[in-house]
Each structure stands twice: as C-alpha cells, then as structure tokens.
C-alpha cells in the first residue's frame, strides 16, 4: 500500500504516537522488573528503579589521617596525604568543602586555603594533600565534607536467593524445570495430533467432515473451567491421578480445538494443484502430509506452538487442578510466585526476581519466533 501514489494517510502521526505509547507501556514495567531484580532491598526502598541507572549523590564527612602518625616533613613544612575513600576511584568527588556551612565550596582538584599558608587539596578520585607548618599539621585530621557520586550498584544476590535457596523465598529453579516439563510436552502433543486432524479435515473427503469442523468451531467457545472437575474425576478414576501425564492430557485437550481450527484454516488455503499433483505423482495421503503439507504449514505450526507454549507456561489453574499435589514436588512457577506473595509479600526484590525468572522464557520465545507469530496470525486472511 505504501507504493500507491497519494495514499499516505494524514493519520500517520497518530499511528506513530500510538506505537510509541504502546512500546512505553510495555517497556516501563518490564525494564523496571528487570532492574529491580538486580537491586538490594535497601535500594528498592530508598529510590525508584530508574534512579539505579544513574550515579547516586551521597554527602559524606571524612577526616584526613591523624597528622601525628602520618605527617611527612618537607623542610619546615609537613604533608599528610591519602585517600578519603580508602582506595582511589571507589567513588567520585563532585564538590567538597571544609566547613559544614559550605560543603560545596570547592570543586574536585581545587586548593582550599585554610589561612596562614595551610592548604588542602582534594582530587576527584579522593586523593588529598594537606600541607602546613608543624603547628597546623597536628592534633586531629582536617575534616572534609564530600559530595560524592557512587556508580550504579547491582547485585545478582536476589537470583541466587530466589533460584537456589530451599524453603520459603526460594526453589524457583526447581519450579522452573517443572514448568518446562509441563510446557514442552503440552505444546508438542497437541500440535502432533492437531496437524493430522487438520489435514484430514482440510483435504480428505469423508462423510461428516463438515459436521466435525462445525463441532471443532463450537468447542472453541466452551470455557475450560466447565471440564475441570469432571476431567479430574476421570483422571482419578482411571488411575492417572495428579501428575505430569494428567496435566499434559488436559492441556492437549484444551488446546486442540484452537489448534485444529487454526491449522485447518491454514492448510485449506494451500494450493489444491500442488496436492493434486503430488497425488498424481504417486504420493499417499501420509506422504503428502509429511512431505508437502507439513513443510508448507510451518508458519502456522510455529505460531500455534508459540500460543500454546505461552499459555501453558503461564497457566496456574490447570496446573493447580491436575498437577500440584500435597508434596509440592511438582509445583510450577506461577504457583511458586503465588506462595512468595504470601510468605515474602514485603520483599519486593524477591518478588521482582521471581517474576522476571518466570517471564524470561516467554520473552525469549517471543523475540525468537515473533515473525512466525505475525505470519501465522495473518495466515489465510492475506494471500
């Protein structure tokens, strides 16, 4: 459409603003969560996450080293030298002063005149030099009021706490792998089944095909909550009980209508000639499916895989009903976060870290596969 002369819309700026707002809306909490997860509890309680990205300004009082022990004679004068921060460059001196009434009297590197030839110099990296005569360089060390900039400070401590500590506030690593154990088979199994079904519904002629398709469309609108209790009773009755097998089966069942619908609509749009030609070429239905349909349906398969994976990854309800038992060995991340909210509700750094652990994989999946997502969603609407 961009190439058609004269159709550049006057609303293009509205589009741009909307995009910018959407991006900001999405980025602000996500980046905030990421930054917060690397800060300590103290930092979180004193400043917002955005402040963590810039050097913090701190006002501190330092004293020069005790002159009686540290002074060095230079002729009739004496010098005390050292670093207020202990080691050079730990922080950065922005401004400083020698009186509590004027703490910003000097910039870093300037020489402060204390009268009668007594001087003190403070460099940006915290090195000072205090000079004067025998009388002046004695007693207590000269005070320096320093406004220092501390570089941003981050810690990975939260992650080790959340991931590897057993007990309350920890155990996310185990929950992470449990969630993977749920999500991956719960994504692959429905795709396997649905792609076969979709091919049959799209390209094989058999009586009742239209009715079956209608039934699939009908199932799309049935809320899964309806089936929770009967299905759990069934699982318990036939001996599956609560466990991975049960939750895989449940996710498969709940995902199938959408999967079949999506894939069938995509496959039915593939050119008929290609399939007929393959048939004339001597391919069986199974060969057509494996060698022609599956490779050509890859965008649709990928986009459904993303949907199903995100949905099973973020699922709490189905896991609670079909998976998590009293032992807590099979807890998933969503459940773990709910527990953290209860036991460690005040520890924002823990919650932020746990939340980020749980959104990391969906983010990764989304960014790696997003072109298939868009292509798959548009599948069938644009040829």
């Amino acid at each position, binding site marked *: 459409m961009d190439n058609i002369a004269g159709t550049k819309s006057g609303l293009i700026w509205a589009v741009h603003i909307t995009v910018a707002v959407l991006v900001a809306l999405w980025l602000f909490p996500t980046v905030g969560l990421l930054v917060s997860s690397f800060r300590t509890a103290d930092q979180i309680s004193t400043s917002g996450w955005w402040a963590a990205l810039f050097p913090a300004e701190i006002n501190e009082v330092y004293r020069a080293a005790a002159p009686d022990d540290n002074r060095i004679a230079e002729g009739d004068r004496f010098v005390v030298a050292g670093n207020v921060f202990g080691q050079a460059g730990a922080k950065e001196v922005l401004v400083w002063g020698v009186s509590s009434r004027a703490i910003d009297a000097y910039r870093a590197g300037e020489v402060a005149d204390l009268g009668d030839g007594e001087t003190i110099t403070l460099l940006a990296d915290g090195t000072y030099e205090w000079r004067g005569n025998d009388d002046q360089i004695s007693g207590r060390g000269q005070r320096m009021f320093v406004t220092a900039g501390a570089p941003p400070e981050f810690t990975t401590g939260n992650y080790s706490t959340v991931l590897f500590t057993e007990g309350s506030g920890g155990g996310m690593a185990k929950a992470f792998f449990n969630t993977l154990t749920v999500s991956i088979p719960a994504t692959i199994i429905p795709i396997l089944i649905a792609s076969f079904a979709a091919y049959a519904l799209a390209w094989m002629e058999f009586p009742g095909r239209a009715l079956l398709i209608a039934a699939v469309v009908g199932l799309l609108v049935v809320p899964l909550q309806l089936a929770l209790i009967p299905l759990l009773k069934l699982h318990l009755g036939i001996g599956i009980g609560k466990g991975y097998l049960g939750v895989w089966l449940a996710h498969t069942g709940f995902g199938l209508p959408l999967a079949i619908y999506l894939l069938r609509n995509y496959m039915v749009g593939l*050119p008929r*000639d*290609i399939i*007929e*030609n*393959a*048939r*004339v*070429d*001597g*391919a*069986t239905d199974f*060969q057509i499916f494996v*060698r*022609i349909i599956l*490779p*050509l349906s890859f965008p649709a398969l990928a986009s459904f895989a993303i949907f199903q994976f995100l949905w099973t990854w973020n699922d709490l309800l189905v896991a609670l009903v079909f998976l998590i038992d009293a032992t807590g060995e099979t807890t998933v991340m969503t459940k773990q976060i709910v527990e953290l909210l209860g036991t460690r509700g005040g520890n924002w750094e823990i919650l932020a870290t746990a939340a980020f652990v749980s959104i990391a994989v969906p983010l990764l999946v989304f960014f790696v596969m997003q072109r298939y997502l868009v292509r798959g969603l548009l599948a069938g609407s644009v040829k």
Partner: protein
Amino acid sequence: MSGVTLSKAIKRFGDLQVIHGVDLEIEDGEFCVFVGPSGCGKSTLLRMIAGLEETTEGHISIGGRDVTRADPAERGVAMVFQTYALYPHMTVEENMGFGLKMTGTPKAEVKEKVTRAAEILQLQPYLKRKPKALSGGQRQRVAIGRAITRGPEVFLFDEPLSNLDAELRVEMRVEIARLHKEIGATMIYVTHDQVEAMTLADKIVVLRGGRVEQVGRPMQLYQNPDNVFVAGFIGSPGMNFLRGTVSGPGKVRVPALGDQEIKTGVPLPDMNTAVIVGLRPQDLGVHQAASPVTVELRERLGGVAYDYLNTPTGERIIVEIKGDEPIAAGAEVAVDFDRERVFFFDAENNRRLR
C-alpha cells in the same frame, strides 16, 4: 501401447451433469487437444482421465487397462497444471525427482532421470534453485520436466500456457511441440486457445457443454466443420455467419449481401427454408462498388488487415485483406468470394449441409 480410450464417460456433480457420455479414442503417441469455451467440461474431462475426478459412469482405459476406478498414481499419467503446482519448499531437482522418490526408485536412478529431463528442457543451470527464484517460463518448464522425469505413458496438460505472457507462450508452444516429437508419448492438452490447438494437435476434440462436437485433424476441422459451433470456433477471426433462405434449387438468397443469390452444389432443403451461410474471412475479398454493404473500420495487423463490414440486415462481416488497398471507412463495397468455399448450415439444428 498407451492409447487412451473413453467410452460413454459421464460425470455428475450431485444432480448436475457436466460430461454427457463422451466417446473418444486417442492413439498411442498422438497429441490430442481438447478445446472449447470455458465451462465446456474440457478440464473436467482431463481430470477424469488423470483420476482427480471420479468418473460417474462409463469407462476410461489407458494402454488397454481399465483405469476407471484406479488411483491417479496407478494410471501412468503425469499432469502439468496451469498454475505449475511446483512444490515451493523444494529445489527444482527435488521437484522433478519427487514422483520417482514416492515410488521408491533408487537415488542414482532418480538423479539420472532428472538430469536427462533437465537436459531436454535446458534446465541444468537451475537445478539447485527454488521455484521462487525462477521466471514464469522456467517454472512451466520445471513443471513439464517433472512430468517427463516420471516417464509416464500419457502426459496431461491443463492449460499450461495461459499464465504466460504472449511472447513466452509462443516460445513454450514450440517447445512442447518439439518435446512431443522427441519423446513421442501420448499427450492430452487442454486449452481454450484455438491457435494452440491448431498448431500443436494431431487431433482436436471440440467440446461444448460436456459434449463432443467434432473430432478430427486440425485442417479437417477447419476445412470441413460438422456444425456452426465448430466452424465458428476453429479459425481466427471466426467464420462469418449470415442468414439465408433457399430461393430455388441449388440457390440461396442472402439478404445481408443485398439479396445476392449464391449458387451451390450441396443438397439444400426445401424452398424458403432458412439456412445459415458461413464465409471464412480468409476466403473473402472486397472491391469498391455500389452496394448496400459499407466498410465500418479497418484493423491493420501489418501483413494482413481486417475489414469490418456493415450489412443492411445488421449482420457483421469480417474480411481478411492481404496488403493495404486504401478503401475509406464508410465506402460501399461488394464482397467477393469463391462459391466453392461457402459453407451452408441447417438453421434448425446448426448441422452442416453437405
């Protein structure tokens, strides 16, 4: 022996009958063209031979075997589609070898056959490319190459050239003719373009409304059409048809030509019966003379020109002129023709009178 025989072939879609008992005999090695206006059932008939449409009644046999109920793969046919139907995710080589691979042919043999087919069609430089990276003509060549690779008894072409531009179409037409000479296999070719039909065919089957109107060699159909439809369909521009009445023994009066009477040796019906007079544009000439017929406009194609004439009855006549004699539009002209080359048709059932 790989001739194709259709006997009483009937196709119904539900209650709708689209093929009405077609009987056809296609010899081994013959190039047979199905031609007809769109919707005449020519593609359906081809798909019935391919096995892509079930034959409702009647029989189809290929090379003496009855294949009426056989799977497409068992019929020994290869089909070339209008849309090429290449597998987009495979290279040219894989596309061409797909059929053989499906039948479990050893890899070395597949490779050899693909190479040979690629040689015939000069496709060697493109073997590693995907169809996306080919032009329309190359794609069509790959589609044909795919058919050759399988070495079928019968090639089926479903309007293979209609997606190509005019220049490429001529080129591919020659290529297909050359291919037929080289391979010598039976080929069935569907087209609505009568030029393709005339140039390629050993045998043309003219279809209309699911019925065979006439079968014959191209020139036979041109020179000796059975009925008004075939006469009008074969030849370009189409035959001129004028209403006439039998005005005496061996005489037909044509009002469009100023009540001119045409003498003929063909057996005519009774006096005053309506007949249709057919005149090919190629057999006509014009000269300026006082006449009710006037020149409306002239189309110049270079070598020849077409004069569109208005007649007093409102019927149009097209005349093919060699050269470019200057006759102004609107001028009165007389139409010249050889009375040996006039066709007469029964106005009732449109059959040729002969």
